[in-house]
């Protein structure tokens, strides 16, 4: 916290909270709980992945070869770097430097776009090869039993993750505008922190997806 007098931040306190500290604590706790629900949401798909990888270990390893490790690695680096920029954005917002925070959020959004572009390229490549989920699967090279299941899980996992990237981008874009307008320059920057937490979760999920899908 910046050493600000109570009065300067009093305007941000909702009527049912005794002080700003409690309100920020509540917001942070709420966000952590929400992130826990997100982990459990992905947890269902990770469970399905574990079960089917146990059933078809050789096929999953073979199917994984048809993904581009280079694209996956670049995307991992892109997302981890974007976590750094979003953390820096929060740092500057916290210290009342809204404009600089907005620029860093813009850089984060740029990384997110790069991630989605690479992902789109990968998907179109998979479409072209017939590496598709379930009944749409028609690859000529990969015929082993269980291969359609790998791509079902691949598309469900990366699709759900991609949806989270888009939601995260929307949140960060709104925060970017508000930062630029100086909304968080007066000692209250919790929304930027919460948006950053969400973005870190999006990265974290990818850090598990990357080895599970590309590196087996």
């Amino acid at each position, binding site marked *: 916290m910046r050493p600000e007098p109570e009065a300067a931040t009093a305007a941000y306190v*909702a*009527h*049912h*909270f*005794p002080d700003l500290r*409690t309100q920020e*604590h*509540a917001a942070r*706790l*709420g966000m952590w*709980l*929400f992130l*826990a*629900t*997100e982990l*459990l*949401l*992905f*947890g*269902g*798909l990770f*469970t*399905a992945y574990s*079960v*089917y990888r146990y*059933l*078809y270990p050789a096929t999953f390893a073979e199917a994984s070869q048809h993904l581009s490790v280079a694209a996956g690695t670049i995307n991992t680096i892109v997302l981890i770097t974007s976590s750094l920029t979003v953390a820096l954005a929060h740092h500057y917002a916290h210290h009342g430097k809204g404009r600089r925070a907005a620029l860093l959020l813009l850089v984060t959004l740029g990384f997110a776009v790069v991630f989605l572009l690479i992902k789109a390229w990968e998907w179109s490549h998979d479409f072209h090869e017939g590496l598709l*989920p*379930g*009944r*749409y699967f028609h690859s000529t090279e990969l015929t082993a*039993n*269980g291969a*359609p*299941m790998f791509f*079902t*899980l691949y598309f*469900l996992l990366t699709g*759900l993750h991609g949806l989270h990237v888009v939601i995260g981008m929307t949140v960060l874009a709104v925060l970017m505008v508000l930062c630029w307008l100086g909304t968080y320059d007066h000692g209250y920057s919790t929304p930027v922190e919460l948006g950053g937490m969400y973005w870190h979760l999006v990265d974290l999920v990818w850090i598990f997806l990357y080895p599970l899908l590309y590196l087996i």
Partner: protein
Amino acid sequence: MSQSLDTTPPSSADEPAYNPRNYLNAEAGAMSWLLTRDHKRIGIMYLVLTSVSFFLGGFFALLVRIELLTPGPTIMNAMTYNRMFTLHGVVMIFLFMIPAIPGIFGNFFLPLMIGARDVAFPKLNLLSVYLYLIGAVIALYGMIHGGADTGWTFYTPYSTTTVTKVVPILLGAFVLGFSSIVTGLNFIVTIHTLRAPGLIWMRLPLFAWSIYATSIIQILATPVLGITLLMVAVEHAFGFGIFDPARGGDPILFQHMFWFYSHPAVYIMVLPAMAVISEVVCASARKNIFGYKAVAFSSLGIAFVGFFTWGHHLFTSGQSTLDAGIFGILSMFVGIFTAIKVFNWTATLYKGAVVFTTWFAYFCGFLFFLVFGGMTGIALATVSLDVHWQDTYFVVAHFHFIMVGGVIMAWLAALHYWWPKMFGKMYPERWGIVGAMTIIFGFNATFIPQFLLGNYGMPRRYYSYPERFWPLNVASTAGASLLGFGFLLIAVYLLWSLKWGKVASANPWHSRGFEWDTLSPPPVENFLSDPIYTHPPHDYTEVPSGAAEVKHAT
């Protein structure tokens, strides 16, 4: 901070005095309700919405019972029958039993019990109502367009291949899950951050402890159901094959993932019921709870162990004997935690000064259904017995006793106990007792025959049955009709009391629960001045002197 509202304080807590400036008349107009962030108004909205759902689900149940009145076809064909029991299950579980008690009484009373002005996130709270409404409308759309015939459990591979409209109902349940998560998240944060000064954890009302345990399950289990239902929807719509053996999938995986949520969901339903009962028992015995910590921590115990019992739904699904044994033993732990509660509730009654009110009648009904249903649950958790009873009416009767009996008894107890606080009016006590007797008798008459039917081997969800099951089915349908009549009676006298009921005092039951420390109905900001707590709730050691007992900050 001092209270800014100019509200006339009542002369005495015992004297009936309608609080003239309350949350109900603070603002007028439809928009003041539709956009409200007041937890009390949101509680009332949940009361209206879940009650409508309850009557809808009850209507489907009666249709099912009428169809089963004769061994052959009675009023509908087999497909309609399948849709009816599916709708009954979906509506009752997702639209009534999961949201009802937390949505109505959790929202209304949790802040009042911890001395807060509202829940932590009032806007999210309003969002949860709308998510409930959207989920209900999507599911209703599916029902109007034919409805699913899968049963509320959506077992694969049937649910992914049926020609009926499964997808809207799955998506509706998915959205309803969001509503449930938002409510649970809100309650946990509220209990952590908004307790008034002096309200340490060991003074937290037991209602709040149990709601807290419920919320943990809502947060951690619901997302798994969400993703599972989405997978079924995707498979039904696009043939992704994730649960389809023909494409290398495993339909049993669905059962595991479904019950990973849906078994804990049973505790999402019954823990709030236990929350209500822990309050009601103190107020009726006029004693502090016997074994506060045991009751509080057994709620958390149920929430925890509830996550590791799902396999008892799969005893006959090819599970290994070792797995089945482990899941059976873990399931019995729930029985231990529940027994801790039951013993402490009954010990609380010991030498208590009990006045036989309507809500006390429901408390007695609750104990009966919980113990009877619970004991049959222990029997079902025994693998060798379950193999005989699997998918028979014994299971139907068991879960209706413990889940539905428990929830409905507690819901009605809460409705009567807190009616004066919520609306400032008294319900007619004699009609209340008549209603309680009708409900409790009707419930037994409906489901005891089903225990017998199941034990004789009648499978659940069957459209027709051999003639030897006829008499017991007639008895069950007669009981269900009585039950339906009882609910109508309660609805009529409660609505009647809103206009013509006697005016309630701030604390007509002389309860020492914290929520009674404010006026009836409560003012918008809940308390006239911010409360500071120096005693645990339900401290009846001194002669009560109404609202003055809580010290107020100036």
